[in-house]
């Protein structure tokens, strides 16, 4: 079903954007890694890289970048890897990424509970 929407949109955009790479699994980025731009957009940069730098003056999660660029999360992770390698962004990965199958610690649960109660 969703297969079609990508093709209708622009069959080649995804391929162009990420230069044929599909190895996001090794990018080291989590879906909710928080990205902060460390340099201003510069001329000559790929348009998606420019857009990412422009939208990340505050911490921005990978999935939010993906939603705003209208690109799959996997493609965005690859773009972010480029920017990280160039020193143009810094990243805070989620603490859960270190031990994804473990229960969260008690302090985290307390903080989440307090945060939810304030809603």
């Amino acid at each position, binding site marked *: 079903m969703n297969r079609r929407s990508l093709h209708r949109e622009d069959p080649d955009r995804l*391929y162009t954007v990420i230069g044929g790479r599909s190895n996001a699994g090794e990018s080291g980025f989590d879906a909710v890694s*928080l990205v902060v731009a460390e340099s201003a957009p510069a001329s000559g940069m790929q348009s998606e890289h420019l857009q990412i730098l422009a939208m990340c003056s505050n911490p921005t999660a990978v999935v939010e970048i993906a939603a705003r660029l209208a*690109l799959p999360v*996997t493609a965005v992770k690859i773009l972010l890897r480029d920017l990280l390698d160039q020193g143009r962004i810094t990243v*805070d990965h989620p603490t*859960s990424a270190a031990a994804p199958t473990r229960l*969260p610690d008690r302090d985290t649960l307390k903080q989440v509970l*307090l945060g939810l109660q304030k809603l």
Partner: protein
Amino acid sequence: MDSKSSELPDTPLDKTIKDALKIVVVGGFGVGKTTMVGAVSEIKPLSTEEIMTQAGAAVDDRSRVAQKNTTTVAFDFGRITVDRNKVLYLFGAPGQERFWFLWDQLFAGSLGAVVLVDTRRLEDSFYAIDRLESRHMPFVVAVNRFDGPQPSLDRVREALALPPETPLIDCDARRRDSCKAVLIELVMHLTHLLDLSHA
């Protein structure tokens, strides 16, 4: 600057936020996942896509990503700022088998899950419950109460073959206080599991 910010109508996160947590709301089509996410999110729920990269990725070449057999799945999410340093992302995800790769690619490290069920289509949640149990992903089950006659929670528990320790509650996915109660139930459940694991 103004033109840029007009493309980003939603509030950015505070600069002090350093850690992001995840909770996944899983359920069949039309059960109210997006409604629930939207009811508690501080931003209008966003939608994005993910490509299935795991199945076959090891044997396939790099050009595959843009080929016709690419499988993408759309999902929604919202967020709740928890405190100065933490933000909680809420994902709405379909529960059927073909969407399960999202759990490996995106939802690893989630605090837990909410299984949202419609009592008229309980079978839509069977697969999700099985998978969560086999992954040892903690979850609560929330019954989105629609209009019309409704079976009791006891009957729902029986039909879903839920063990007594799995929380099962009623909710109205349109109401913030109700969705908030579901999320709090999940966090309490996690706290309980943590107590048990240290006992």
